[in-house]
């Protein structure tokens, strides 16, 4: 394990621990956007950093069960969908076992498998995932903004409008980034692997 790996591991564990601190937890969970976008997003980042801390991804990792990173991406996508459902966010706020489940599953089933699988993904699959991420953010944002009922019992309806706006903003940033990169920044650097 290199010094850099250790630093990624420490960063991942550190972020995970900070997010679990009661004041940080309650501050992020006070708003719906903070809960779904900031907390779950940062938990996924913590898992991603842990994944990077495990070192470079060898081609034969996971004994051939994760060729092209397919299995890891499937696991991550389901973990993401699971924690975007309003009913599960409410359960996490009301039941400690669901909260613990969220704190374990988002880093370990979303961030970490994505970090180990992303470098193995073919460029086309990466593009597909980015494009899908944009459309999913736009659709989810629209669902939260237009829902005629309160989706999360624990949050007021104006929180839904804010979350919708946040999801749209995130989608717009990703779309703008890739548009600029595609038309202005030249060809994407596939060797960088971990991010793009």
């Amino acid at each position: 394990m290199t010094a850099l790996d250790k630093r990624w591991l420490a960063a991942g564990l550190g972020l995970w621990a900070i997010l679990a601190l009661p004041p940080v937890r309650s501050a992020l969970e006070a708003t719906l956007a903070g809960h779904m976008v900031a907390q779950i997003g940062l938990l996924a980042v913590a898992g991603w950093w842990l994944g990077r801390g495990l070192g470079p991804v060898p081609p034969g990792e996971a004994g051939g069960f994760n060729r092209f990173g397919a299995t890891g991406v499937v696991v991550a996508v389901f973990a993401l969908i699971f924690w975007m459902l309003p009913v599960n966010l409410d359960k996490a706020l009301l039941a400690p076992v669901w909260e613990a489940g969220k704190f374990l599953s988002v880093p370990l089933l979303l961030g970490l498998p994505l970090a180990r699988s992303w470098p193995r993904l073919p460029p086309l699959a990466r593009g597909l995932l980015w494009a899908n991420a944009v459309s999913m953010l736009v659709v989810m944002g629209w669902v939260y903004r237009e829902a005629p009922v309160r989706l999360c019992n624990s949050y007021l309806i104006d929180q839904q409008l804010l979350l919708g706006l946040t999801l749209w903003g995130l989608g717009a940033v990703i779309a703008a980034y890739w548009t600029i990169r595609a038309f202005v920044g030249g060809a994407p650097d596939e060797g960088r692997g971990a991010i793009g």
Partner: protein
Amino acid sequence: MRTWLASISAAVLGTVALVWATDGGRAFTAETARRLAVSKHAMAVPDLRLQLQTGAQARLRELEGELVVATFIYTRCRTMCPMLGTRMARIRGQLPESAVGSEVRLLSLSFDPARDTPDRLRAYGDRYGAEPASWWVARPRSGLERVLDELGVVVLPDGNGGFRHNAAFYLIDRKGRLVAILDDKRPEAVVRAVEKRL
């Protein structure tokens, strides 16, 4: 091949988890999950000490043996609670006259007991024709938090001195058990649910 198998297994497990967490794809929100759970298993409602619009003291348990249609309000509310009052009055009007007050009791319960004095409760009740013999407009004197928790009523301050809350009609059977949480916008469904149990 192994990757295919692993990916498909992960997708199957993921789908199972999603189906499980949403009650078979029926409950994407906590509110629907709660309604489904109650419709499957009746739930004992904790007793409450109440003060009625007449000023008299009462207990929720006294209503055992009757069907109770309950809803939660606060009298200063200008949005949802007046509608709940109107709809409760509609339910009252559509129920068989012989059953109201003897077999069925209506209950508008305040979740703002500090401000909702008997005078205010009476004024609210009078607006919708609530006769105390058949329709209690009451404030709890203890145990409010527990009842709100167990019935899944969420009350949040709205930042302007009022509250935001989820609205529904709660049907309590003769044994004092919550047997249905019904849509507040469909009073006729509440009437049908009560009539089925008369």
